[in-house]
């Protein structure tokens, strides 16, 4: 009896020991719950970021929007920041427009449904100013070595917020002469719609509010200067061609739709204060 009890006790101890051994094998070192990097330079935390920047549309349909501006951002912590951006721009015809224009008729002919050069040009809009207010998240940071010589810090960030744009188009009354696009006009509506969208007002100017999304990278050239590369999406209601989109033979507000305006930006970020702190 005593022998059996002793053997059972030894067996239990062995099982418990094996369990503890397995647990010991599963254990992790004391750094497992620690931060990824200690004594790290806090390159953005509690700092203002002022970045003069250049921005251009990517793959615009009718007009490239190219301009310069600035962004001002305050980094509440190491990962979260709030900011605003504003850009003044000019418009440049895309290759598509340059291909279309030489093929259009030189003089307006209402007998055809083809726009003239002047009509086509006058309906296109431009974006002299655009900007956004946003919240930014910086979940990734790290270092890179270029050609095994230059070691620089970088971080990736993602932004979301509200976009704002001022759109302009200039269609003189000599071209946009239809007083009531898509509707009958004259006393008692005696004149039927002309079914010619080429002489309608483009209705693609004014202020726009929309959504803003962005993603980019800071490449720190020093403790307070960084190269800032960003792809930004200003999404709002627009009709860039100013022409009839929904094929009802008139330009109306229904022809505007929610469009993404994708920009690529390059800036130089200057951080204030210019000195950095380190983590423990």
């Amino acid at each position, binding site marked *: 009896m005593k*022998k059996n009890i*002793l*053997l059972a*006790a*030894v067996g239990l*101890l*062995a099982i*418990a*020991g*094996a369990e*503890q051994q397995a*647990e*010991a094998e599963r*254990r*992790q*070192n*004391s*750094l*497992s719950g620690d*931060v*990824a*990097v*200690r*004594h790290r330079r806090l390159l953005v935390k509690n700092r203002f970021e002022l970045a003069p920047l250049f921005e251009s549309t*990517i*793959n*615009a*349909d009718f007009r490239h929007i190219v301009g310069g501006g600035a962004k001002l951002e305050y980094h509440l912590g*190491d*990962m979260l920041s709030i900011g605003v951006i504003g850009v003044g721009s000019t418009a440049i015809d*895309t290759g*598509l427009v340059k291909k*279309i224009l030489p*093929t*259009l008729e030189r003089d307006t002919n209402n007998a*055809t*449904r*083809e*726009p003239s050069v002047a009509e*086509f040009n006058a309906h296109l809009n431009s974006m002299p100013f655009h900007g956004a207010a946003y919240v930014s998240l910086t*979940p*990734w*940071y*790290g*270092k*890179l*070595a*270029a*050609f095994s010589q230059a*070691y620089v810090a*970088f*971080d*990736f960030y993602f932004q979301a917020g509200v976009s704002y744009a001022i759109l302009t188009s200039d269609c003189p009354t000599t071209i946009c002469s239809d007083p009531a696009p898509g509707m009958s006009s004259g006393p008692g509506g005696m004149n039927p719609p002309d079914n010619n*969208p080429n002489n309608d007002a483009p209705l693609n100017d004014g202020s726009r509010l929309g959504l803003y999304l962005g993603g980019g990278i800071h490449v720190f050239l020093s403790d307070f200067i960084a190269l800032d590369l960003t792809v930004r999406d200003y999404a709002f209601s627009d009709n860039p*061609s100013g*022409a*009839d*989109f929904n*094929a009802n033979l008139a330009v109306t507000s229904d022809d505007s739709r929610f469009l993404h305006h994708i920009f690529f930006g390059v800036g130089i970020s200057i951080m204030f204060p210019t000195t950095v702190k380190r983590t*423990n």
Partner: protein
Amino acid sequence: MKPLRMRVFHRSVVFLLGLALVAGTALAQPNKGKTPAPAPAPAGGEPEIEIEGEGSAGGEIDMGTDPGPGDLNADLNAAEQNNAAVKAGPLKRTPLSWKDILVVVRKPFLKSRRTELLPMVGTTMNDNMVRHYTVGGQLSYYLTDVLAIGVEGQYYVHSFREPFDLVARQARRLPTVNQYNWSAALNFHYVPVYGKFAIFDKKLITWEAFFTAGIGAGQSEVVPRDTKFPGFTNLLIIPNVGVSMRFFLAKWLTVSVGIRDYVFYDKFEPTDRSPTMNATADQAKDNSTGSLINNVMFQVGVSFWLPTSFEYTTFR
């Protein structure tokens, strides 16, 4: 009596072995009641663990424990364990020279003499009339850790974008577009940039950036403006250049994203086709108009590496 003593002896041995087993494993338990011993401070300042280059903690001298193949995280954890083991022990004052200071830790992923198989997909970035999607693959062999030679092949499908329809309806113009059918290339890759980043201050990911340049061939096909007339195909000579990023997930698995510019001279359908002019494909091709095209593609793929593991040939 002797047999009985033997049995008692056996029981005692078993019991002692059991106790020793328990005691041995208990010693291996983490000490939950205590905080880890603080790391010894370097001579000139605070304790510091940096992920790269400057201020890198030393102590990476144990070559004995080799994590299982394919586990990149185990490698990184092993390095941290080595650091902790060195720091937790008694501080041993040994004279140091600059040769003893580890400036750059070894790369956690080696590519030299390994083959990369990269299935990938891509899409057009710079054409506002027609968008191409590609399915393809790359096979690359790394001659060194930074230089590779490889081949690629892609199959294209396309869809028309909004302006293709708008130009027809609003400007009364039928766009002239070509679709791409396939392409193949011989490429060279050069890796000048590598680094690490931390996600949410917890997880370390290693990555690198590389340039690609190559030359190949492909086929484009005219999309007839009027389907009464046949299209024709063009054989293209296609140089390409690009830049990509690669993220290391395991010793045999990486993810790549990149941008590639395929440059070629393409021939388009003549604007004047009628039953009496350029009606056949050959006539249209003879009178086609040409243009230099930059087809910029965004590509993403998952790479599989062979052999699936590697060994370091030098000490850290």
